[in-house]
């Protein structure tokens, strides 16, 4: 029996020790920077505490029975098969009633509040951005400002082939992050051009599916400037693991400056009507790098990992618009 107890202890330690290697509390989400994320973290901490208590009570009873009611210690079994006295009925009803109270009062009320808060995307919204998922990148539009760009994974192929990447933002870096102002409510509209994707940024507490052919909405209001990273959270094919989301939150003056620059650049791009051949080639190369290179090599033949299927030999999957 000593052996069994040692085993229990040993296995518990084995699962816990690796967690100790982390400075951060392994039960905690990434640092929240929006009202929703804070509310969610509060709820998460509360729930985890509650279920930890429930588990400990249940496990305690189990452990007690296993130790106390051993046949090998000559314990004679009782014969009851249901509660009999009113007291026993009351004791049986107690855990169930506790569960109901936990469900609908302790958890249910904060949850109600959170659902309504999250659904309120319009009130006081200072800015609207549109997020479009595509296999396998994100496109960001600022409809009222006339800006739009595509945001691609920018982790280098060398890092991905290396087998031992060192880039601290490995697979979490993009060429053009979404830029948002801090302290303002931003209404986020989402859609997709092909399959369902999901826009998830843990420190915003937001995960919203982008459904092709429909608009979904959510909102964020970021506390402080910084760079926040997330990933697509709905399987969307071979490149699903490689469409990160990066948001750069700037203080209002910095954001305004960024906006002005971006608008100037957009205006310049729109003003150009005729292009010389070298300019066209340069444009084409840029577009190739932004849109095509993720899947296709310049030779048109072999495709690099993760898309090993070659263009020439492809029985490529059918695409529907």
């Amino acid at each position: 029996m000593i052996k069994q107890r040692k085993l229990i202890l040993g296995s518990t330690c084995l699962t816990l020790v690796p967690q100790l290697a982390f400075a951060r509390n392994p039960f905690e989400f990434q640092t929240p920077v929006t009202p929703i994320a804070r509310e969610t973290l509060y709820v998460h901490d509360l729930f985890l505490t509650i279920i930890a208590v429930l588990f400990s009570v249940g496990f305690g009873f189990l452990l007690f029975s296993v130790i106390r009611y051993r046949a090998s210690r000559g314990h004679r079994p009782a014969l009851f098969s249901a509660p009999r006295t009113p007291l026993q009925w009351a004791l049986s009803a107690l855990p169930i009633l506790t569960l109901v109270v936990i469900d609908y009062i302790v958890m249910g009320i904060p949850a109600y509040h959170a659902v309504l808060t999250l659904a309120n995307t319009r009130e006081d919204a200072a800015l609207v951005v549109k997020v479009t998922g595509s296999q396998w990148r994100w496109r960001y539009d600022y409809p009222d400002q006339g800006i739009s760009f595509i945001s691609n994974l920018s982790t280098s192929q060398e890092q991905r082939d290396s087998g031992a990447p060192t880039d601290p933002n490995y697979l979490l870096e993009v060429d053009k992050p979404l830029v948002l102002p801090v302290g303002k409510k931003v209404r986020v509209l989402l859609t997709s051009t092909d399959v369902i994707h999901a826009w998830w940024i843990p420190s915003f507490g937001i995960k919203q599916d982008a459904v092709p052919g429909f608009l979904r909405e959510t909102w964020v209001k970021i506390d402080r400037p910084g760079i926040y990273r997330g990933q697509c959270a709905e399987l969307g094919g071979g490149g699903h693991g490689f469409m990160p989301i990066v948001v750069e939150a700037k203080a209002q003056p910095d954001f305004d400056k960024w906006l002005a620059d971006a608008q100037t650049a957009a205006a310049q791009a729109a003003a150009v009507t005729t292009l010389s051949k070298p300019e066209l080639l340069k444009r084409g190369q840029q577009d190739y790098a932004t849109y095509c290179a993720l899947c296709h090599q310049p030779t048109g033949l072999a495709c690099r990992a993760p898309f090993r299927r070659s263009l020439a030999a492809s029985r490529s999957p059918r695409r529907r618009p």
Partner: protein
Amino acid sequence: MSSAITDFGHHDAHGEPRGLLRWLTTTNHKDIGILYMLFGLTMFLLGGFFAELIRGQLIHPANHLLTPELYNQVITLHGLVMVFGALMPVTAGFANYLVPLMIGAPDMALPRLNNWGFWLLPPAAIVLVLPFVLKLIGIGNGPVDTGWTMYAPLSVQGGPGVDFAIFAIFLLGASSLMASINIVVTIFNLRAPGMTLMQMPLFVWSWLMTSFLLIAVFPALIAGSAMLLADRHFGTHFFSAAGGGDPVLWEHLFWFFGHPEVYILLFPTAGIMSHILPTFARKPVFGYRAQVYSYWAIAALSVVVWAHHMFTSGMPVAGQLYFMYSTMLISVPLGVLFFCWMGTIWQGALSFETPMLFALGYIVLFGIGGLTGLVLADAVADQQYHNSFFLVAHFHYALFGGPIMGVIAGVYYWLPKMTGRMYSERLGKWHFWLTMIGFNITFMSQFFLGVAGMPRRIPDYALQFAPLNMVSSLGAFLLGASQLLLVYNIARAAAGYGKPATNEVWDGAQGLEFTLPSPPPHHTFEEQPVVT
């Protein structure tokens, strides 16, 4: 196949075929039960192989064991094989073998249907996995790669592997419906005189509810799959907005089946618990009626909570609130079940043979699965959990910690009855402890990964997730390897080694099946027992 299994004291008086033909044409509930179980075990090993590939790929970042496409195929096959190939057949095997014995019936009510029901399964499994094998030898572009949830439009866009999967689902659906109808008919019509519904063993009750659920919800998946097939090849637009359809419709159809499905997997093992716990606590079942009513309540609730899998799909507020609160309600009957299991061992005289160890492990692990489910029910907090590794950990605690642990407990419990031989108790205990340790290392780390922000279904990941993934992978290798002990124990007893088992097998074992010899003769209860 050893003679110990094939013989079973069989008599050839009516000239039945022998060898392979016997197994192909058998209408005997014990033969069919054994076929189901062996099929389930094979699929468990195949699904386990896929699982080890997944953890092999995830053991460190920038690993190139599998390409992203292959990785998606492997996770999809892992899910489908484990759910439809391993768990459902193995519990159906228990039902076929045990229900007639437990209710004192000579066989299942519809023996020919029973045979068809089983023999649809191997073709289904072959159809599902064939594209994977073909791909290995360079033909085609692989099996279904959409995740077991097969969300449209990804599944509309996918290659021919998706068609194979749809066809497999049709076969599996037909098989499940045949088995379920057979079980319902058997239970309602062939009970021994004197056995009222409220005297049936709880395993029989649990399978009655499972059958009802299967009959109620599998058609939704079949219909959905047919619509998917039509979208793929016949120009319909059920799931495409361009033609007036809606991709989210697939999610509704899938989860209308998918959520009850988790209880379809769970119920039979909840029933098994109420056989094992009383035996090794030497005490009657606690709260028989409460358990039956809980089964009913869980079954009824499970068909009205499905969209808790879709909190991030963009549901209106009313939908979010309804599905959140209704989901929370399930915790009440589930809590009653836990209470009854605890009540059964409370003040008993416990001994800890392998089935009991697995049953106790079930309470602990499934407890964690259920409790974390409660957390997932919060519609807004679910934005952090959904499709993260937290969710993966939840449903593995719920599905491995529950049904798989329960099935293993049941195997050790009834193996001596079925083979007439005791398994090795020492190896059984090793199996239990290694499983517990391996399982918790594998999946506890995944809770932390999810909370830290790692999405599921990605073949490569950011560096902050590396240490825990390494831990999880090592745990998975241990967990996988220790299941070989189960295979050995089963093979050993089936081959006729080990101490002979008595009729009662366990002192204190209750139920009609323990009044029969071990193994029971080919035909049982030719004279109906009378229950008083």
